[in-house]
Structures are given as structure tokens and as C-alpha cells.
């Protein structure tokens, strides 16, 4: 018989090892799945995890890594802060969409004005839009006790419909010959979020993601607010005793994660996506939840996890092209990764001992 014995404190070694184990297990299970579906498992795993970086088409796909990782890391950094406090913002996807819309709205409102302040103003509007969308569940929880999980998630569906409405209605490109979708911001120099260094994929969102990692690391390890957030997640009563108002934390965490998600949305709309369409949300907000957990809610871990999941996106696309793997493969992989991670997590909190029978 096997027995679980709780550890006195979480094991540091396993904290690092479990995400790696989870990735490994996902590859094995994924391979099995491919084999069942009739694909060559080794080739499929190589296509997803190796080829984007080192394969024949790597020069095209490598820059995509930063393009895809930036929004994931930016959003996950904010989410992780809230998750630490036990505040579950799972509507980052909606905040991302709204941030993209409010940011783009600034540019579309003044089009075709060219001015140095336009892009910073768009970033500010993106942050504000995401913040405001995140504050809705925060205030509903603080005032009425409504579950932020369900409200933030419902608002994703609302945001998707706002995006569709914008793309078909108020923001539709007047010169778009009736096609839905806004003007393309990449063709609007003052509003565009271009590649900063050619061939790297690095745009302003990448810079922002790096800053977000640094800032949340500082917040969580050096600042008393971060200490209070961590305390509230483990022992809410102790946090109150220390002087934390739960309402303040709820507003702070949902506001922060909303703002970062909103900024990610703006960088995407002004950069890689280029315009507001009804398909503005591509699931970054949900994948970022996996990134946050895989990164163990730690800024450095999130950085690495964001890069890894970005890799699965690119690899998935590649496998779709070269091996005709279904597009949803990536989603399955990501879900599996989270499963394994949560399962292996047991090892950090418990010791496994064999029961010695007398």
C-alpha cells in the first residue's frame, strides 16, 4: 500500500522538477495519442517541440516564438498575482479583447493623424480598457459577493460579442468594401506596433512582457503588498489580521491582471493581428492560465512556461501544415500539460511512502 504523508513545507526540488516531469509526460501521452490516431508519434513530437526552433523552416518560425510568447507572459504575470491570493480571474480573454478594442479606438478616432503620442495613448487606453473590464467582477464581488470566477468568464462571451459588433458595426473600415473588420493599424505608422529588431519578432509587447516579469517579481518578493497577497492566498484570516482589506486585494489583483491582459490585446491589435475582427480573441487569455500554473505562479517560471507554450502554438501550426494534424492538437496538448502538472504537484506537498505493515 502507498501512503501520503504531508510535507512540513513545500519541497523546492519538486517545485522545479514537477513542471519538467509534466512536460515529459505530456510528450509521452501525446505520442501515444498520435500513434492511436495513425500518425508517426516521434515525427509529430519533433515537429511540435523541435522543428520550430531548429528545423528546416526555423528562420521563419523562430521570430514567431516571441510574438506568441509575449501576450501569454504578459497576461500570465498578472493572473499569477491574483492566483497567489486565491482570486480567480479566468476572464483574461475578455479583458484582452476589450483592451484591444479601447486601444484601437484611440487610433481609429484620430485617423489619419500622425503624432508621437498616439501609440503611448493607445497603450494607456488598452491598459485602461482591460482594467475596467477586470474591475467589473472585482466590484461585483466586493459589493455583492458574486463569484469572480463566473462573472469574469461570462464577460468573455460578452467581450467576444462586443468585438463582433465593433467589427461589423462602429469600427468597420469605411474603405473596406463592406468586409467586416477595422482599418489595419499596421498600415498606420503612428499607431502601429512594429517589429523593433528585424528577424526577432520582438515588438513593444515583448518589451512590456519583460517589464511585467520584472515588476511582478519585485512586487511578490520585495514589496509588502506582494507579501500580503501571498499571505491572503494561504491564510486569509492571517492577512486580515496583518491589516489587509480583502476588498482592496480583490480590486488590485483583478485590476492588475485586467490591465496587463488589456495591454496584451492592444499590442496584438496594433501589431501581429493588425485590426479589430470578430475573431480578436484567439485563446491567449485561457492559455495564459496554463502558463501561470506551469510557471508555478513565479515570474521566472512564467517566462519559461510562456516560451514553451508559444512553442506548442507554432509547432502545432507547423504540424498542421506538414503532417495534417488537426488544429485542435495544441489545445489538447495544453490541457494535458495542465492535467499532468496538477497531478504531479502532489509530489511537492506530500511525501509518498510505502506502508509498512506490522
Amino acid at each position, binding site marked *: 500500500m502507498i501512503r*501520503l504523508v504531508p510535507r512540513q513545507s513545500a519541497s523546492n526540488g519538486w517545485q522545479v522538477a514537477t513542471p519538467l516531469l509534466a512536460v515529459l509526460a505530456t510528450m509521452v501521452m501525446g505520442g501515444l495519442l498520435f500513434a492511436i490516431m495513425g500518425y508517426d508519434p516521434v515525427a509529430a513530437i519533433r515537429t511540435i517541440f523541435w522543428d520550430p526552433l531548429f528545423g528546416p523552416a526555423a528562420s521563419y518560425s523562430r521570430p514567431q516564438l516571441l510574438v506568441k510568447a509575449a501576450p501569454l507572459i504578459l497576461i500570465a504575470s498578472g493572473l499569477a498575482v491574483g492566483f497567489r491570493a486565491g482570486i480567480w480571474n479566468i476572464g483574461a480573454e475578455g479583458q484582452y479583447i476589450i483592451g484591444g478594442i479601447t486601444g484601437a479606438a484611440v487610433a481609429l478616432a484620430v485617423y489619419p493623424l500622425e503624432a508621437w503620442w498616439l501609440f503611448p495613448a493607445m497603450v494607456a487606453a488598452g491598459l485602461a480598457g482591460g482594467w475596467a473590464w477586470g474591475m467589473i467582477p472585482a466590484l461585483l464581488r466586493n459589493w455583492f459577493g458574486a463569484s469572480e470566477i463566473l462573472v469574469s468568464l461570462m464577460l468573455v462571451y460578452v467581450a467576444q460579442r462586443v468585438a463582433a459588433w465593433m467589427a461589423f458595426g462602429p469600427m468597420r473600415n469605411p474603405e473596406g468594401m463592406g468586409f467586416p473588420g477595422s482599418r489595419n493599424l499596421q498600415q498606420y505608422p503612428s499607431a502601429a506596433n512594429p517589429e523593433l529588431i528585424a528577424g526577432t519578432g520582438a515588438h513593444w509587447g515583448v518589451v512590456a512582457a519583460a517589464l511585467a516579469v520584472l515588476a511582478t517579481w519585485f512586487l511578490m518578493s520585495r514589496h509588502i503588498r506582494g507579501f500580503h497577497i501571498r499571505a491572503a492566498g494561504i491564510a486569509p484570516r492571517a492577512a486580515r489580521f496583518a491589516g489587509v482589506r480583502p476588498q482592496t486585494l480583490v480590486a488590485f489583483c483583478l485590476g492588475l491582471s485586467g490591465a496587463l491582459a488589456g495591454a496584451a490585446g492592444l499590442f496584438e491589435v496594433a501589431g501581429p493581428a493588425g485590426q479589430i475582427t470578430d475573431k480578436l480573441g484567439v485563446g491567449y487569455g485561457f492559455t495564459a492560465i496554463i502558463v501561470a500554473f506551469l510557471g508555478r505562479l513565479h515570474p521566472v517560471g512564467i517566462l519559461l512556461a510562456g516560451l514553451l507554450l508559444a512553442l506548442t502554438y507554432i509547432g502545432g501550426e507547423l504540424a498542421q501544415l506538414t503532417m495534417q494534424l488537426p488544429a485542435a492538437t495544441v489545445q489538447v496538448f495544453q490541457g494535458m500539460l495542465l492535467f499532468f502538472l496538477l497531478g504531479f504537484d502532489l509530489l511537492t506537498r506530500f511525501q509518498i511512502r510505502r506502508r509498512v505493515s506490522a
Partner: protein
Amino acid sequence: MIDPLSVFLLLLSASTPILFAALGELVAERAGVLNLGVEGMMITGALAGFAAAYASGNPFLGFAAAALAGALISFLFVVLTQVFLANQVASGLALTLFGLGLAAMFGKPFEGVKAPPMPAGPLDINWIVWLGLAMVPAVWWFLNRSRPGLILRGVGENHDAAHALGYGVRATRMAAIAFGGAMAGVGGAFISIATVLQWTEGMTAGAGWIALAIVVFSRWTAPGVLAGAWLFGGVTVLQLRLQAAGVQVPVQLLSMAPYLATILVLVLISARQKFSRRGGGAAPGSLGLNFHALR
């Protein structure tokens, strides 16, 4: 112009998926388990049910397959939360993300084909709608009048006490989660087999999340779930009617109605709970908490 009876029939149909999923989640939550994977289990059921119905030509076989598939995929959540003691919120999210992906992956071959027709039941109402309505008193009776139901509520209310009295907390919860999975699967299959009549990716469109909100709205009672599901069904039908009538509001804004209504309902019910003096403890005492006994 609007025939009340036909509107009611539409409402019944629109509320059925949520009714099934929410009744299943109600039982799971009464056992103390918060499973946020309802959406994932619904979409799994939607696909499995559609596939089985399409392959066999028998829609009822489809519903049976959907129940089985929902229960099977909920087993992942069982393993994570009951064996590996993982966080229930995170595990539920994982189940939803995984289920959506899995269904999208295996659903490709079924895109564009039509479901076999459903024979109408008594009063020209779908058999599954009848089944859903029958489940309401059945679940109520089970929870409030049967001994296993009493044990299940005890486990959800205070798992330490239930354990101290010798009841199997883990086994009870496993069964409750599996039931929730089967019910969510049937609810999902109703969308694909009986409503839309075909398979499309992501077709549950948040119904699982709405079901979770309905459980809160119900204050954890079966009749409350029925009321919540009908309320939701009513809003959906109204919204569709307005669209059909060509109201001068963009379709996208009208289609927000079910989600906004869900938020509104959630706020009202939470506020009532928060501000009433004697209300308070409607939620099961051990909801969302994991149980680990030292032996």
C-alpha cells in the same frame, strides 16, 4: 401573434441542456466538489453523443454514449482532485480546456453531417426534455429523502465529521462527480442531437459555465435549478424572438443577453445571501475543499 404554448415549448427545449448540467453539478456540489469542468464535460458529451447517434442512426444510443463519455472524462477530475488532491478550481479549468480541445480534435470528421431525427415524445415534446423534467424531483428526492443522499449532503457539509462517523468521503465524491459528468454529457448531447442537429466546434458556447451559475442561483436545491434553467431558457427564447422580429439592435448585442442575464442573476442571488441576516450558509460547508485523512 406569439403563441404562448409554442414559446413555452421553445423555452423547455432551450433550458434542457442547462437543466441537465446544473442538476449534475448540483449533486457534485452538495457532495462538496466544485467542478468547473462542466463546459468541458458538456462538449465531450455533445461530440460523443452526436458521433454515436450518427454512427448508429439511433439518437437514444447517442444520449447513452454521451452520458458515458461525460462520466469517463470526469474521471480525470476525479483522479486529480480525489487521488492527487489537486486544487479543484485549477483542475476544473484544466478539464474544460482539455475537453474543448479533445472534442475539437476528434470532431473534425463529423462536421457538416446531420443528426438522425428524434422521434417526438408525449405531447410532441422531446423524450429527453421529459427525462430532464423527471430528473428534478428525482434529484430532490435523492438528496432530501434517501439515506445515500443524506450521507452525500453530510460529506459536502462537513467532510471531517462525515469521516469521523465512518463515511467514505472519497468514494461519495467520486460517485457524485461521475454523476455530474454523465448529466453534463447528456446536456451537451441535447444541443448537438436535438437542438442544432449537427456538430460544430465549441457549440456549447458557455452553457456549462451558465449551469455553474444556475447552481448558485438555485441556492443548491433541485427546484431552484429548474427555475434557473427556465429563466435562462426564457431569456434565450426572448432574445431569439427579438432577433427574428428584426428589432433595430445589432444581433451581436442581443446575443449577449443570456450571459448578461446570468451575471445579473448571480449578482442578485449573491447580494440576497450577503445582506440577509439569516441566509448565509446556503453553500455546502466543505465546497471546494479537498479532504485528506491521516491514517
